[in-house]
């Protein structure tokens, strides 16, 4: 059993993960459209993805918290292969969730096809950032329960002020100046850019999400064994 298959198996065993991936994206499709943005479910799905990424990243956190990482580090497998195996398993599950949501949105919202072609990669970039953020966040704690408890509050707050769970348009500009430092800000920013067909800004949101992802992965794997 490879690292990838172990990470996949560990996550698929959790019923809550299956519900998050296979069922919860669909109620978001019922949120109606408005005049100034895509149907808000398109934004709000980012919050679901952020929490899903956090729960999927649990095995890597538990390997460290339960001391298994010491045994793994003593084996000839390199840290890069270990991380790659885990992250690709999480990413695959998130990609499945994204695929289901985008397909559902195409059926329900019937936006122009090009929007979906650009929206799916933006979600994927956000998913990568979400997993990386979870790895870095978990590395700060010795207990997963404490980490999750604090993340539940912090994640909601981040999503709220950065326009994921509340339209960016109704957040005061003064606040936006600060919330743009939050990684979650760059999903609604990219979605708005996509709707307004401001493609350089869409590319900017991709670039910043990946930069955050790289920084979080580095921070999350620096911790002493």
């Amino acid at each position, binding site marked *: 059993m490879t690292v990838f298959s172990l990470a996949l198996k560990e996550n698929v065993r959790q019923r809550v993960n299956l519900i998050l991936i296979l069922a919860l994206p669909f109620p978001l499709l019922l949120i109606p459209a408005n005049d100034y943005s895509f149907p808000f479910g398109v934004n709000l799905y980012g919050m679901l993805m952020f929490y899903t990424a956090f729960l999927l990243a649990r095995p890597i956190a538990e390997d460290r918290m339960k001391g*298994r990482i010491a045994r793994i580090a*003593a084996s*000839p497998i390199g840290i890069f292969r270990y991380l790659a195996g885990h992250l690709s398993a999480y990413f695959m599950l998130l990609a499945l969730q994204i695929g289901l949501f985008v397909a559902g949105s195409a059926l329900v919202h019937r936006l122009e096809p090009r929007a979906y072609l650009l929206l799916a990669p933006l979600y994927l970039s956000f998913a990568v950032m979400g997993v990386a953020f979870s790895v870095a966040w978990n590395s700060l704690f010795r207990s997963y329960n404490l980490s999750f408890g604090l993340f539940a509050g912090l994640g909601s707050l981040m999503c709220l002020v950065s326009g994921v769970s509340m339209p960016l348009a109704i957040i005061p500009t003064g606040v936006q100046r600060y919330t743009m430092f939050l990684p979650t800000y760059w999903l609604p920013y990219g979605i708005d850019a996509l709707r307004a067909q401001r493609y350089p800004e869409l590319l900017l949101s991709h670039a910043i999400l990946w930069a955050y992802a790289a920084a979080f992965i580095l921070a999350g794997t620096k911790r002493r064994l």
Partner: protein
Amino acid sequence: MVVEIRELIKRFDGKLALDCFNLEVGEGEVVGLLGPNGAGKTTSIRALVGLLPVDDGTISVFGRRQDGRDKDIKRRIGYVTQELTIYEDMSARDNLSFFGSLYGLAGRRLEARIEEVAGLIGLNGRLGDRVKTFSGGMKRRLNIGCSLLHEPELIIMDEPTVGIDPQSRNFILEFVKSLASGGASVIYTSHYIDEVEAVASRIYIMDQGHTIASGTLPELIARIQGDSHILVDVRIAAEKVRQELLAVPELKDVVIEENRYHIVVPGGVSAFEKIIPILSPQGIVNINSKQPDLEDVFLTLTGKQLRDGA
């Protein structure tokens, strides 16, 4: 030499965890590291496995410098952690399969090794069961088994019997001996004297980060000049009789412990013929003779009993 550690120094926040620690392990040898908690056993093991950078000194494994990056060294070591580092939500087979694959085993070879190791650790009937349904002893055995799939030449066991029942403990001790008879070198750390006595061909006694003494058990006992202890239970012990015993030149010391005379005799000296006539009028109830053991060695060399520090 399979392992050679020279003058190892490791500090945590300025505090010495290893203080010029030395260790040598030969081929097919079982070396016991004995010391109380905090003696530096786990630190030395983690440095040896390559998980912990050291501040000074050298570690050589299979004749190569261990810096934690040499994959060939890692491939030849089996590391049994002190904690249970297995996946409790998975089956025993999944655990063995995963840890085997970390060492490059795959396909039929991996399957064959899983069956073989499961047999060795006595879990062949339970391979499909989830680990969380196992007893503490079974989990410990699986924890060991996960380190053996790749047939390591050096097996490092860090307190592998913590928190298990005596039956499982005996199983593990016998198993360690069988590993050594199969040609593997074993480093076995423990703070249980009887375990180290039972498995190790050579013993290192550690305290406060350094080696206090090392050698075979007879060598270590010889270092403390091998006093023998004779315990004589009588109806009523009396100070006057103790003074009479102390007047016997062959006896080193006599202590009264309730209705018992605890007599210390230098190694190799026979004193029974002089003790018995003095104690007979007291009404001897029982006589026991205790030869010095590893606990006495530890007590003599460190000035404390192992369990005090454990």
